[in-house]
């Protein structure tokens, strides 16, 4: 079991979709929201995800495929 910390950024069209609930339903992972800012036209959620490493990766791949951007919580670490 591992824990992964990620930030989801939602495009306007997905603000009202229960993406995090579905992530927990479709994959064997536990999600724990730690910070969030969700408004009518944008939203981001910082969360912790527990599960097997492979299952987390499959889950995050699905999240990206539905159109949510997934980033490390620390922002980009590749610098110029």
């Amino acid at each position, binding site marked *: 079991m591992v824990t992964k910390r990620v930030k989801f950024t939602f495009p306007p069209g997905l603000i009202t979709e229960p993406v995090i609930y579905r992530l927990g339903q479709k994959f064997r992972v536990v999600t724990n929201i730690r910070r969030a800012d969700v408004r009518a036209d944008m939203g981001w959620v*910082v969360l912790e995800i527990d599960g097997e490493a492979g299952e987390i990766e499959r889950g995050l791949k699905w999240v990206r495929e539905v159109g949510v951007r997934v980033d*490390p919580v620390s*922002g*980009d670490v*590749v610098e*110029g």
Partner: protein
Amino acid sequence: MAYVTALRCRSCSREYAVEPLNVCEFCFGPLEVVYDYDAIARVLSRERIVQGPLSMWRYAALLPVDGEEAVDINAGFTPLVRCRNLGRLLGLEHLYVKNDAVNPSYSFKDRVVSVAATKAREFGFDTLACASTGNLACSVAAHAARASMKAYVFIPADLERGKVVGAAVYNPTLVAVDGSYDDVNRLCSELADAYPWAFVNINIRPYYAEGSKTLAYEVAEQLGWRAPDHAVVPVASGSMFTKIWKGFHEFASLGLIGKVATRMHLTQAEGCSPIVEAHRANSLHVRPVRPHTIAKSLAIGNPADGLFALRTIRDSHGTATAVPEEEVAQGIKLLAETEGIFTEGAGGVVVSGLRHLAEEGAIKPQELTVAYITGNGLKTQEVVEHLVHPLAIRPTLASFEEALRGAVAR
């Protein structure tokens, strides 16, 4: 002697011990170093600073390190150049350039990495690491060599040869990752959790970032102990921008300079301008973007300190400017041909941004302005290659004079 008392979350203010830690365990907000400023005020004075080494380490009391032995390749105390030619062209009578392109590994990254390497050694790490597309890679590899530490430097596999050599020459373990920018980002975040290394801009980031404050201290000292009216700064993650502002205020609160009324002007290239976009939308939410800019040293699509950069603009009554991509090379050329300073893409963004600010009247002619030039043009010659046209002649006087007449006619 260190004057650091704790790390504190910039979002929820929870405090942590001084450890290699970069995010708050509770809310995942970024951590920042907390100092005992009363103790610093008792020992720091203009006189003491002036007696210090001619490097960024003359300000050691305001840096988060304990010992006397810094990992130092002589970063900092770079020239503050009065730019009369460029100033005349832009209608600015008191224009200066802080030329940080002449640091030992040719960028301002030497300031942050010098602090990070020193702190990493204090924590007992034997390995420095980073993920970079250029300047940071060179600086980490150079400082690791100086400190006799191991270095792991991760670069995208398609990085230009010149930059690969610029880092490889210091003999780090150089790892070329075959994947997208996002893939490299993801991998390095995982590596930082998996390996007991000092990733300078991940687990050492709170200390690393403090090195940028010396860009403010030096300018204030070089201006005769005052802050400028305007600072024009290139921005990627937003860290340096916020730390320059912090540096001026620390100097003022310690009585080393007077009241700070500096307006902080943030500049990005249009192809990667998430902070400017947020500022235009009057929002404190930075929406991540995929970078597509020739100013590669500013190509951070998900800036860690975006929120704090936006607050700095607001608090300083500053501005945010996105420079069209075609103006990046023009800015590089303009600085080179007016002042004899060859900068990289980030400097081109600053000079073109400065031109816009002057034209729009955001900077008045008499106001004291400092433009920060943070990297050297020799590393990114491909950006201006199309603007360079030498005269080609045969080895005869006649051929030379013919070519010269042609050039004059053009």
